[in-house]
């Protein structure tokens, strides 16, 4: 049996363990921006990735459109029936919008929580290690992307911007296990109910909405949208639909299981949403500790 680790090797192993802990500690720290060597490496690989990603998107699109051709007839039938309703719905939306605008003018409120500025981006990579679900998109600091902006697809919210480089940025999906990932959500019904998107059920692929007060009744099929009260996301981005409600451990709160509207897999194009309503300054926010009155 040969010796696996000689003395020198053992020392190297121990030193590298210490370096490992130090490096992990360094990168887990709350950072506004990755350091410039990291940004450089990310931007360089991002450039190569975007060269590769665009042709593959093209071919994947071609392939999937061939696939879609199969059930075109059925879909067409269904869509036609829906489009009849659409015209009347559009007229209604138009009048409501006008109504809303005039009421807002009389109130003198210019901005709302749902005002936003969309910026389309292409997905050029995804974390293959799959512990934290992250996407890499081809827009960065130069395109005006900031940390914590909301990211959506056509069908709903998928996550937020985690870190920004000059020409690319990283998006953390809602399905990622990040304890810091909390989004203020609103469950639409006769009376609105608020809660936090907190966690993801890996087995059932459902989002968990926690901190819902115990007395409220929530039924299956209710819509869940962002509330805009978190200070970072705009209001009205679709999250999903309620599937199940359970009381939490102590019975003080309820947890709603929400089927996300967006598909977290096979994402090719996303929209980064910039909130236009002023954001609270960090200095104005309390630290979260209780203050003496």
């Amino acid at each position, binding site marked *: 049996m040969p010796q696996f680790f000689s003395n020198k090797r053992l020392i190297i192993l121990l030193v590298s363990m210490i370096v490992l802990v130090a490096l992990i500690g360094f990168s887990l720290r709350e950072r506004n921006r990755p350091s410039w060597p990291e940004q450089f490496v990310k931007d360089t690989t991002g450039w190569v990735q975007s060269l590769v*990603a665009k042709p593959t998107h093209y071919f994947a699109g071609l392939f999937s459109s061939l696939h879609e051709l199969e059930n075109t007839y059925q879909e067409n039938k269904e869509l036609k029936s829906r489009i009849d309703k659409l015209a009347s719905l559009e007229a209604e939306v138009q009048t409501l919008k006008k109504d809303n605008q005039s009421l807002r003018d009389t109130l003198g409120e210019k901005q709302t929580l749902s005002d936003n500025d969309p910026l389309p981006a292409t997905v050029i990579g995804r974390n293959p*290690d799959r512990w*934290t679900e992250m996407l890499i998109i081809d827009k960065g600091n130069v395109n005006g992307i900031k940390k914590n902006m909301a990211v959506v697809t056509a069908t709903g919210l998928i996550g937020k911007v985690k870190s920004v480089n000059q020409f690319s940025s990283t998006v953390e999906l809602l399905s990622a296990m990040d304890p810091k990932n909390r989004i203020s959500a609103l469950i639409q019904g006769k009376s609105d109910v608020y809660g936090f998107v907190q966690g993801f059920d890996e087995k059932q692929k459902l989002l968990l909405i926690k901190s819902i007060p115990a007395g409220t009744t929530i039924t299956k099929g209710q819509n869940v949208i962002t509330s805009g009260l978190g200070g970072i996301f705009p209001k009205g981005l679709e999250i999903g639909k309620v599937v199940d409600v359970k009381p939490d451990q102590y019975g003080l709160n309820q947890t709603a299981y929400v089927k996300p509207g967006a598909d977290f897999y096979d994402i090719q194009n996303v929209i980064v949403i910039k909130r236009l309503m002023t954001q609270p300054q960090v200095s104005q926010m309390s630290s979260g500790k209780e203050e003496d009155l």
Partner: protein
Amino acid sequence: MKKILLPLLFMCLFLVESLFVEYLPDQVFGQNWILVPRFLFSTLIFLTIYTGKKQGILYAAIFGLVFDVVYVEVIGIYLFLFPLICYLVSKIMHLWHDNFMIAFFVTICATTLLELGSFGIQHIIHIANLDFIDFLNLRLFPTLILNAIFLLIFGYPLKRYFEKYAARLSGE
């Protein structure tokens, strides 16, 4: 041209892993499997076995670091695990002859070790909340099958290429 072929190969695998996950659908064969492509890592192990310890650990460290910076955003996990497992593999391969089936088997073991190692680290820094049984059933076994398929298809060409590369290195 021949000199940049090896880094280019690893760079391609690095990008292919990301593309593979990007186009992977929600469910594969109706299962909630978490398929993790470890193509880059398997190739690094093959490089260690067929070319040499020095090249293997060097490339493992470089691509471990790039992997951490670009994809994981936590520096240190793969920078540590890739070279360490390559080192262990090079030690184990001293004991056996480098037959293809043995190399295949050792690579699968190394992938298991990598998954266990990353599971351990993720558990310590509280990113994963998968319990161990789920980790085995949902993640480890499907991943091993995926990587075994990759190795069965590309293992032999990789072996040939790395052996040629080793011969060229010793010829210089």
